């Protein structure tokens, strides 16, 4: 495989936590805005709960392992993902975030040394994959929501390049 990107599992956990902070903050903002209705609102409420739970769990895991969990940013630049005043814009932005999350976990997974951490990552990525599919169903229920038999992973640097513009100032 490729040269290792991370020094150790703690770095990988903080990488994951960075993404989970981003996702959790997105759903807090979107769900508070009240643009979505019906099934979309129900699904987004569930997804938002999951992302917040992921933040809590990863923070605890990093602390428990003697590391320092990364903090959430003071704010995020979600408008860079599109027009979040419309349902269509929100769904498109969420699809990008969730698909990036799955690709990020699967790109980092093979670098994880500890098998219990790998299992935890698997528990999280499975829900992220659930999220991706249901958001695609919301975008177009009549289209195939799972276009790839083998969803692609993303290299950590590519993920960081993609999400850095979304990160606001440190708290």
């Amino acid at each position, binding site marked *: 495989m490729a040269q290792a990107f991370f020094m150790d599992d703690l770095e990988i956990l903080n990488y994951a936590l960075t993404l989970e902070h981003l996702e959790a903050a997105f759903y807090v903002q979107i769900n508070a805005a009240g643009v979505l209705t019906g099934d979309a609102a129900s699904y987004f409420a569930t997804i938002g709960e999951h992302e917040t739970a992921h933040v809590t769990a990863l923070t605890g895991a990093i602390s428990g392992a003697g590391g320092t969990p990364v903090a959430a940013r003071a704010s995020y630049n979600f408008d860079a993902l599109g027009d979040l005043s419309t349902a269509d814009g929100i769904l498109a932005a969420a699809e990008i975030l969730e698909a990036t999350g799955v690709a990020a976990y699967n790109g980092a997974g093979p670098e994880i040394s500890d098998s219990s951490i790998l299992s935890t990552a698997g528990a*999280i990525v499975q829900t992220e*994959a659930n999220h991706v599919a249901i958001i695609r169903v919301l975008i177009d229920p009549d289209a195939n929501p799972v276009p790839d*038999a083998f969803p692609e*992973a993303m290299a950590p640097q590519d993920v960081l390049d993609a999400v850095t513009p979304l990160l606001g100032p440190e708290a």
Partner: protein
Amino acid sequence: MFSRSNNDRTAAMMSRPMSRRTLLKGSLTMGAGALALGALGSTPGGRFMLLNVPSVAAAQLDTDIDILNYALTLEYLEADAYAAINDAGILSGRAATYFTAFGGHEAEHVAAITQTIQALGGTPVTKPAFDFSGVPTEPAAVVEFFQQVEAVGASAYHGAAPSVQNADVLAAALSIHANEAMHAAALADLVAPGTTLFSPAAFATPRTPDEVLTIVGPWLPSGGGAAPGAPATGGGGMALRQQRGGQLDVR
């Protein structure tokens, strides 16, 4: 559900009560021309293994090739099940769209895993002669059933992935894991739209091979008296276990 004893479970799997068939509605026969057996056996210690011959001697899931053959068996099962439903033409609309796409994915997984096993110098297991005579035929029940199958498939990859040694094999397993989880979520929108079925918990629960094989056991040939190459008959296979109107017992 079976008892907690592995030995008891083995006995139960090998002697699926035929009376259970009386619970089943309709049938989708795919046994004709089916090939060799994928038998289940157990060690004295009670650990389940997949065998590509009906013998008590088998490898445990200790190596990547063992894990890949375990995955291959599950993918064979999914691919054949989708093919049976899609060939039967009983779905329409969104369900038909999803099933056509997802069935194609499972066939791709079969091909890729087979090639990987061969590339690693292993021998892919032969496709078992699955018995799908108990698969529901009413469209809503079909979709509900496959939603559960996909969720079990995802949990199987989740459970097995940490045991994989080869990083490339692991990367492939993680990719398939995500794909199966996407299938499960999409089908959930057909089964129970607007509910949490698409993603029931913030942290998914993995299943061990033992747990997965207990769930899918009813699909597999009974193996008890059959020999490799023996003609698959309706009576030789196990009925798909159904409870609560067509659900897998996946608690």
